[in-house]
């Protein structure tokens, strides 16, 4: 459902004073992270940010490496805007938004060297592990990128590598260990509504926003991926402010991810 013009005006005019759900401008909604929800997947996670809900699943297959990196495994992040979540997501080939979501999360994971891809090589030049992270949006109430990013890394952290049978097939009931993960990238998305910076925007707020800026941060507080979206321009100060917020918020979320994964492994 698209936002009424009247409500858009209302949100934009009031955003500096109060958000519709009473949060402060930098405040996240409640986040819950669950692991081990899909038995068929090598790793999985469900993430809820307020009413937004996503499921991430990791599947592993043996494939051939890219010619330019014969000794490295392959990581692929793919997101499906299922029509489950919103009638706006029409069925059929992925649309711009869905592809952007996949790519922003994908870059966050790839650029941070999250997974030690060299350790995913089985036989140089011919056989490597292909790790697929698939994300499904169950309910859409804004900030899909952060939810997907948190889900993707949590699913990867809990993923188990299947054993390879003598005939080359996979035994997905016995595992040789966890994936070689070195980093926990966390994306934090803020937007600009009527010149106010708003973090963790709801769906309605996103519809009112002029610009959106996603900043992915790693453990040492450096940034590993960024994406500016939305039609409007942003000032240098606004960008730096949003990057600061990302540093602060990602810390909290990273420790929540670590705690969840620790619990899962016990």
């Amino acid at each position, binding site marked *: 459902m698209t936002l*009424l013009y*009247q*409500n858009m005006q*209302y949100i934009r005019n009031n955003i500096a004073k109060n958000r519709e759900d*009473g949060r402060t401008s930098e405040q996240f909604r409640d986040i819950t992270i669950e692991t081990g929800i899909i038995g068929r997947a090598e790793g999985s996670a469900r993430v809820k940010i307020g009413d937004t809900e996503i499921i991430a699943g990791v599947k592993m297959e043996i494939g051939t490496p890219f010619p330019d990196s014969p000794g490295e495994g392959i990581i692929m992040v793919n997101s499906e805007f299922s029509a489950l979540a919103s009638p706006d997501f029409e069925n059929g080939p992925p649309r711009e938004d869905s592809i952007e979501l996949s790519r922003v999360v994908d870059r966050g994971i790839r650029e941070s060297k999250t997974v030690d891809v060299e350790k995913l090589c089985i036989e140089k030049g011919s056989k490597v592990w292909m790790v697929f992270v698939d994300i499904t949006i169950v309910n859409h109430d804004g900030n899909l990128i952060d939810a997907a990013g948190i889900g993707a890394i949590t699913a990867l952290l809990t993923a188990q590598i299947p054993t390879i049978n003598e005939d080359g097939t996979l035994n997905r009931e016995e595992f040789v260990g966890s994936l070689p993960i070195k980093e926990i990238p966390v994306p934090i998305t803020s937007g600009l509504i009527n010149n106010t910076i708003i973090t963790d925007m709801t769906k309605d707020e996103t519809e009112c926003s002029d610009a959106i800026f996603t900043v992915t941060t790693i453990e040492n507080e450096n940034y590993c991926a960024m994406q500016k979206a939305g039609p409007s321009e942003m000032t240098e100060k606004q960008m730096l402010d949003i990057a600061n917020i990302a540093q602060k918020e990602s810390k909290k979320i990273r420790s929540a991810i670590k705690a969840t994964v620790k619990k899962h492994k016990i």
Partner: protein
Amino acid sequence: MTSIKIIPKKEDTTIKNTNEKKENKTENKDIEQSNKIVLPGDILVESIDFLTGYGTYRDGKTIYSKILGILRKKEHVISIIPLSGPYSPKPNDFIIGEVAYVGYSNWKVNFGHPNDATLPMSGVPEFIENGADLSKYYKRGDLLFAPIDSVTKNMIIQITMKDKRARKLFGGKIISISSSKVPRVIGKDGTMIAQIKNKTGCVINVSQNGRIWIKGDNEPLATKTIKMVEKLSHKKGLTEIISKYLDEELKQMGIKTQKSEDTEKQ
């Protein structure tokens, strides 16, 4: 002798009759008072003495429910009060809609229904000359509160602004609730909505299609309260609960504002 025999017989029958009547009454009461939820396909009554009302269908002697809801029996009509579902437009219902398109001789008004309503030039109190610019009267994005004039079988819906209560809404904000919960928000003889208006001091317009227009300083509280009514709609004594809730919230807000005044003084 025979007469004596006849008298008790008569008494018997009269006693039986009253018994039967009593039974019938209690049965009716049971049905009217019970908040039992019926589902599509539930058998409601197996008799040709009853008529099918809203949300029911007949197959032979049997009347079935076709929607999820609460059973109501009024005299000889069996109907279902829906607990969910789309709004079905009926003449004389007031709706709140947004002008989506300004045409040559009419306006199209979106009111959350798949088919936009039409406001014809003749449905406006002013006399408009042919060829006049209709956006002088109502333009795209304007909010209208208006009754439905007619609905055809093919769902062509016409509204009118000629009604005394019909008007354009300025400012404020729209919230949406399930149209099946509208009667609860209005309350018996309008008591529920009256107390929300009085206590919050907001101007509130409730439309049959589930859209509610709120304007006033206490809009966040009015919104929260209405969402609460929607959520607790099945509860008994809801007017009381809401009255207490509003008093409590207002008291807290009063304290807060007092405190901030105090700190300002210091």
